[in-house]
């Protein structure tokens, strides 16, 4: 048969029902080796449940989990070769940092014939990699948030697992630390070439970290792809509006709706290709100055009930007065069309009679 390319983690038809609640409702997914995969979705979309099923902390109602080509659906977490970083970090408060990191190694002591020296060596190496080797004697409560996160990652890395699962590990850090931690995490993953699955509800985190992003909602996968693909070419209305801040403007027609992102909705004078653009009469109601951008609230004439936003860079000298009308343009390729019923993307429609 020859070498068949096998993804490292594969989910087939995974479902998880809690009583009547369908937390995960039929998920198929392949995760490649060395990949940084982000599962993104609003709270309650089933992303954490999905990750817990990869870890083995939750048994799927239906479907199978494969890791490294083997069906691990019936295996307990400890037999799956995965490790996990919890949202709260779940450091053992009664052990110091050294023992926290050594804890997974001690579990394998008999199986892999680790002696005390080998364990110490591995712990120190991992700690050095994460620059926490001077904290080994401390207890978790004596550590800062960032240090705790590093200890949690060290504990997850020390056994060199096939996959590392991260459940919103940055959400407990304050905003300043978070950007830094994100950068370090990505750098660390790239250099160690480990496969990572990262769950988050924060799209900036997802866009910044993910080689690929899985967007989930209502227990189902909405779209899988690179950050750019998902942002520029959303598969449906949910993905289109969930990503981007402020979110995409959506305007309704009879059988379909169309949308465009606020940053693509610019005064006509700024449009680089007015011939291929759609021009709207735009009434400006209010302007928020955000520093680098101006956020404009208003509506398209004839569409007075649908609030439409524009994001205009501050460095272009176009004056936008409140209570005035302007001509705004969107490039035709930036307008996306969706089915009103299913929400799925459809091909370009004629906007002539609509606006």
């Amino acid at each position, binding site marked *: 048969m020859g070498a068949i390319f096998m993804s490292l983690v594969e989910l087939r038809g995974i479902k998880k029902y809690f009583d009547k609640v369908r937390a995960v409702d039929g998920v198929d997914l392949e995760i490649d080796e060395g990949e940084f995969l982000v599962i993104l979705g609003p709270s309650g979309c089933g992303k954490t449940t999905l990750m817990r099923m990869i870890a083995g902390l939750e048994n799927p109602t239906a479907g199978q989990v494969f890791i490294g*080509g*083997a069906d691990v659906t019936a*295996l307990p977490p400890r037999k799956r070769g995965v490790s996990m970083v919890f949202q709260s970090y779940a450091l053992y408060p009664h052990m110091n940092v050294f023992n926290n990191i050594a804890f997974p190694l001690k579990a394998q002591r008999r199986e892999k014939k680790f002696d005390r020296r080998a364990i110490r060596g591995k712990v120190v190496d991992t700690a050095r990699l994460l620059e926490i080797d001077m904290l080994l004697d401390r207890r978790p409560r004596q550590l800062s948030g960032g240090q705790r996160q590093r200890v949690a990652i060290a504990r997850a890395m020390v056994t060199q697992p096939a996959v590392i699962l991260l459940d919103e590990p940055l959400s407990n850090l304050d905003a300043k630390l978070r950007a830094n931690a994100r950068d370090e995490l990505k750098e660390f993953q790239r250099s160690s070439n480990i496969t990572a699955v990262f769950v988050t509800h924060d799209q900036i985190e997802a866009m910044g970290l993910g080689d690929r992003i899985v967007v989930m909602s209502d227990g189902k996968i909405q779209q899988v792809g690179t950050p750019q693909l998902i942002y520029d070419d959303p598969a449906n209305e949910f993905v289109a509006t969930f990503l981007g801040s402020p979110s995409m403007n959506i305007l309704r027609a009879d059988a379909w709706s169309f949308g465009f992102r606020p940053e693509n909705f610019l005064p006509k004078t700024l449009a680089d290709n007015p011939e291929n653009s759609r021009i709207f009469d735009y009434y400006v109601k209010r302007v928020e100055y955000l520093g680098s951008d101006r956020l404009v609230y208003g509506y398209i004439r004839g569409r007075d009930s649908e609030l439409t936003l524009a994001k205009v860079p501050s460095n272009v000298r176009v004056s936008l007065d409140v209570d005035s009308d302007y001509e705004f343009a969107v490039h035709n390729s930036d307008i996306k069309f969706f089915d009103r019923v299913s929400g799925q993307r459809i091909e370009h429609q004629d906007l002539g009679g609509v606006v």
Partner: protein
Amino acid sequence: MASVTGLSNPRAYLLDNRRFVGIMFLLPALVYILLLVGFPFLLAIAFGFSDVTVGNTDLSFVGFRNYEAVWENNIFRQVFGNTVMFTLVSQFFILIFANILAIIFTQEFTGKWFARFIFILPWATPVSLAAIGWLYMFDTKLSPVDYLLLQTGFLGPDGVWGPGRNLLWLARPALSQVSVIFVQVWRMTPLATVILMAGLSSIPTDILDQAEVDGSRFMRTLLQIKLPLILPIMVIALLFSMITMFGDMTVVYLLTRGGPIDYTRILGLYSFQIGIEGGNLAQGAAMALFAFPLLLALAIVMLRVASRAEVR
């Protein structure tokens, strides 16, 4: 296709199985308790329908004769009445005192630690040893209480409570009942207080802060916020101490042995005296069983009330 290497032997993973470990962890305790309580319980029922005595060990079935005998026994009726009366009256006072004390001890004040130590003592001391203290307090001749009354003019030749130097706390019908109830209230109030304190301290501070912001004063907060919120736990406290009282015989056994005549005889003591001291196991068991439907009904009603009143 996928080589199945991981699934060697599912039995090796029993210790990872939540349900299996749960059953294995729970089973020993469950079996031990059910054997230790369930078996004697069934035996008690069997005894109730038999003529077993300490000397004659073979059970022969006598139907409801024991229960008829018990029910027609005038002493038993009084004993049953005493038990109910003692329980209800002492619960009334216990609840009042426990509420006051729980409110006191959920506040901060100087000397709280020591005050709490003192007020817990009656509950911490083994009942029988505490009863010794009260036995002395109520002694026919030596009673320090009588001495105080004598000094303050309530007792003695010109005293309002009689010409004698002693009140004879445990030898007079009504007074002996008062004494027994007093000791029960004294020793059970701390437990009820602790349970209520648990309830009070579990009220979220947000709610109390909100009440304060809304302009609620101490009494209003107490009556309209704290008490309704701890009602379920109050019912549990009541249930606990009622059932403890109903099933207790230590205090009366040591203070009065049921006397004078039968004024302080209660169910537990009487069935002990008939069943063990008198050797008539069958009648003793039948008597004890009379209390069971009442206790069960009490427990069910109270648990119902507690779960219905549950706010969260």
